[in-house]
């Protein structure tokens, strides 16, 4: 499981935790999140590749 950080706002997506309150189950890999998903804190699009891997 990896963690991904939004380079605009610092939001961290942790694959292990997911975002159950947004309908993204724990364990959902970054690759499996829909392309139209946007950062919940700042709105940057997933398609802009703005998330960077910060931990394995």
């Amino acid at each position: 499981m990896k963690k991904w950080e939004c380079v605009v706002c610092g939001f961290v997506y942790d694959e292990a935790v997911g975002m159950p309150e947004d309908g993204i189950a724990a364990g959902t890999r970054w690759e499996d999140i829909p392309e139209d998903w946007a950062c919940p804190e700042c709105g940057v699009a997933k398609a802009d590749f703005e998330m960077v891997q910060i931990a394995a």
Partner: protein
Amino acid sequence: MEPIIIVGSGLAGYTLARELRKLDAETPLTLITADDGRFYSKPMLSNALAAGKSADALATADAARMAEQLQAEILTHAKVEAIDPGARSITVDGRPRGYRKLVLALGADPVRPQLAGDGAAEVLSVNDLADYARFRRAIENKRRVAIMGGGLIGCEFANDLVAAGYRVDLIHPAAHPLERLLPAPAAEALGDALARAGVTWHLGASVSRVDKAAGGYRLTLSDGSALEAEAVLSAIGLRPRADLARAAGIDTGRGIRVDRRLQSSAPDVYALGDCAEVEGLLLPFVMPLMQAARALAKTLTGTPTEVVYPAMPVVVKTPACPLAVAPPSPGAEGEWHIDDEADGVCALFRDAQGRLRGFALAGAATTKRSALAQQLPAVLP
């Protein structure tokens, strides 16, 4: 063919350029910036210290790389001195340049405090990457930093500094931090958490004098008290950069007034980001500018599109007490219902019919943000 010109290379300018290029790879595009044109995220400036990131590390691409990515011409260290909307021309460092569409993404200036004393001119503010580099040099090998202003930026910097081991004095004129965004119990939770993390509060006071002293500065407060600090950071507010538009006869209020197509009172002149007042709303946050950039990119490429603002809770980056706040719109009728929980505060603003109109969440309650945001009305439907 004249280019689309974007003035400004902050998040607003670069995000718009990126959105434009998704829709149109051909139209000539020029960005003009007063700084060096490096891409960085401004919200990261207030939490980079504890994360161990230098100013250079925050810059993820230089102007040459951005120009290549965006297939754009980027003029750095260039000043736009005037706009002539009638001639579709701007003056850049004394020379005219024509545009087909002009977008002002100018940002905002920090409000400078009115201070007496021989150290007043050395008070820092952090509004861009170059400021941030200066700030980092100023606090290097120092221990005590005073911050003027307990708003969003002041609280975020205070948290970042104490997390990095600094002693912080935070001077704020109101009785609570972030009092314009938060109801008192949530503001108290924030204030208490920052105090536990090491921030010394000076509430109900402002700084009147900053004098040079041995090893730093001596600050005199409006209540007559005094304190010492090795660096002083001002975070007392932002003023949208509207002077360039105002001088060109373009309609301005506090910011550059634009409609929902982000168009100003002048034909083919648009504005977005912290300089823009969209339908009377000044919202200097990232989410609104992302929405604006997407709508404006469509408008500029031939599909007139109005910006839609969903409910946009603001996340305050204070790890000592995480906050998410969606303030009720100005003048909204209703009242706060506050649930003071053991590990946080959940404050909900409901109207007479019981509908949710705003919220402020502190601590563990911030996990409810997404679910609550879905119940809120859109800011601009």
